[in-house]
């Protein structure tokens, strides 16, 4: 397994969010984390990235325990997060946003470079010299994905990958993710568009109040609309 989360318990002060959550992601897989708002999806991701320290449980990445590691060390180990709200650097240009973080952390033979990312996202290439705060929401999301890709991660995590985007831009992001998936990039994605996630991912984890409510394949999730209704409100 590339990533293995076992019995994760995370709290913000006295308010516990995760209660023994477990999930795993194998190399080359696309896995989703689904659930209604406030169920603990972002907290799970934050715990994996070291941004929220878990109270209990184990997180193993490429055979190494990381639940007590600092966020920068976890990222350097090869996990890249595209955070909710994009969080690009507004006063750096598109190119600078990429140049600042370009590094081959996974030692790929054919690594993602700034030029390769700009080739992958032609819209970004057109706006390479524009500042981050001059981009549309979709372009910012592409930049956030590109910024994660130039670190050449083993695992790419996307929190609310298409939230707040116009339908056309959302479609563009889904196509990009499908291409990344086809290229063998391991992905853990959080989003609400279950129809697209079923097409994109291999396996899914539904969480309810900080606990795993259901885990299964795309075919199983697609077949059981009761799950959609019960855990996702669809």
């Amino acid at each position, binding site marked *: 397994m590339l990533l293995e989360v076992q019995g994760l318990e995370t709290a913000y002060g006295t308010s516990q969010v995760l209660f023994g959550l477990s999930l795993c992601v194998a190399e080359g897989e696309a896995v989703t984390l689904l659930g209604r708002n406030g169920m603990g999806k972002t907290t799970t991701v934050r715990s994996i990235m070291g941004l929220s320290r878990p109270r209990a449980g184990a997180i193993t990445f490429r055979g190494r325990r990381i639940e007590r590691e600092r*966020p920068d060390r976890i*990222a350097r180990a090869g996990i*890249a997060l595209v955070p909710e709200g994009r*969080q690009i650097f507004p006063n*750096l240009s598109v190119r600078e946003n990429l140049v600042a973080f370009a590094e081959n952390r996974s030692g790929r033979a054919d690594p993602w470079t700034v030029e390769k990312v700009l080739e992958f996202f032609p819209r970004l290439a057109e706006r390479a010299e524009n500042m981050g705060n001059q981009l549309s929401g979709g372009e910012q999301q592409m930049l956030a994905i590109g910024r*994660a890709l130039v670190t050449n991660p083993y695992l790419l995590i996307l929190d609310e990958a298409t939230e707040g985007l116009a339908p056309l831009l959302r479609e563009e992001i889904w196509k990009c993710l499908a291409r990344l998936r086809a290229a063998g990039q391991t992905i853990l994605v959080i989003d609400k568009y279950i129809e697209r996630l079923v097409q994109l991912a291999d396996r899914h984890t539904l969480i309810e109040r900080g606990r795993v409510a259901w885990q299964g394949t795309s075919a199983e999730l697609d077949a059981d609309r009761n799950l959609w209704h019960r855990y996702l409100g669809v």
Partner: protein
Amino acid sequence: MKRSLPLLALALAFPLAMQALDQLFYVSFASRVLIYAIAATSLNLVLGYGGMISFGHAAFVGTGAYVGSILVAEGVTSAWIGWPAALAVSAALAAIIGAVSLRTRGVYFIMITLAFAQMMFYLVNSMKAYGGDEGLTLPQRAELGFGLDLGNEMVFYYVVLAILALTLYGLHRLIQSRFGRVVVAIRENEARVEAIGLPVYRYQLACFVIAGAVGGLAGALLASHGKYVNPNVLHWLQSGTLMIMVILGGVGHLWGGVIGAVALLSLEHLISDYPIPWLAQLAPNYQQHANLGVGIVLLAIVLFAPQGIAGLLGRRRRARA
């Protein structure tokens, strides 16, 4: 950088014009302005680009001033030894202060940098062998060799101008580099940079040390310029003056430190040396309170041009285009 060529030409011609007008005082005054421009530019790196509100930059300027002065007082008059030594000792001090201070954030960072600078102030105050609180008078300016007499105001001016030009070019290249981009990214969202996997502390410390080193060099030049140094060069008011220069000139603008130094020192000079008759009638001692005028200008800049004079000029240029 190409746009700065006319400014460079002006700076090159200035002492020749002053010499022709027999106003060499203004060449010495301009040298002092340029030295402060170097110091303010170094502070701008941490304050403007790095977003670290250091209130102790005088510690590095002062340390550089004392290292350069002590070496001259001890007979080591070569600028090739004195100035690099000032730079190195200030860099080492910045590494120590930065290593502790950068573990804090916000108001604690401001207070801890201020506290370190005040500690250095009291330390040099107690150095009786080097003048204590009365300061240290130097027999001469540092020597550069190659037939360049730094005792000559014109030569000193051009040497300082060359160092300022190198400082600005270095800062420009640094900010354009990957290191500079990361430093700016840290200023904008430190947590995100850490989450992307870069060691924020190390980048900030490197930035702090570079700024401290350049500040130290400015200090050595300052002591050489006046052939005198006293503990006030390390006082927190000195840190405040440098900060005012950066704010006035433009926080995070390449030319911010230079514009701020020129504006502040010229304003002080104008207020104290050129009386305004109607104001003198109204308040006879107003020229002794030049800082009041500076305060009013600073207030206006903060309220109406928060990006400083450099930001204001940039806005006008964009509007014209």
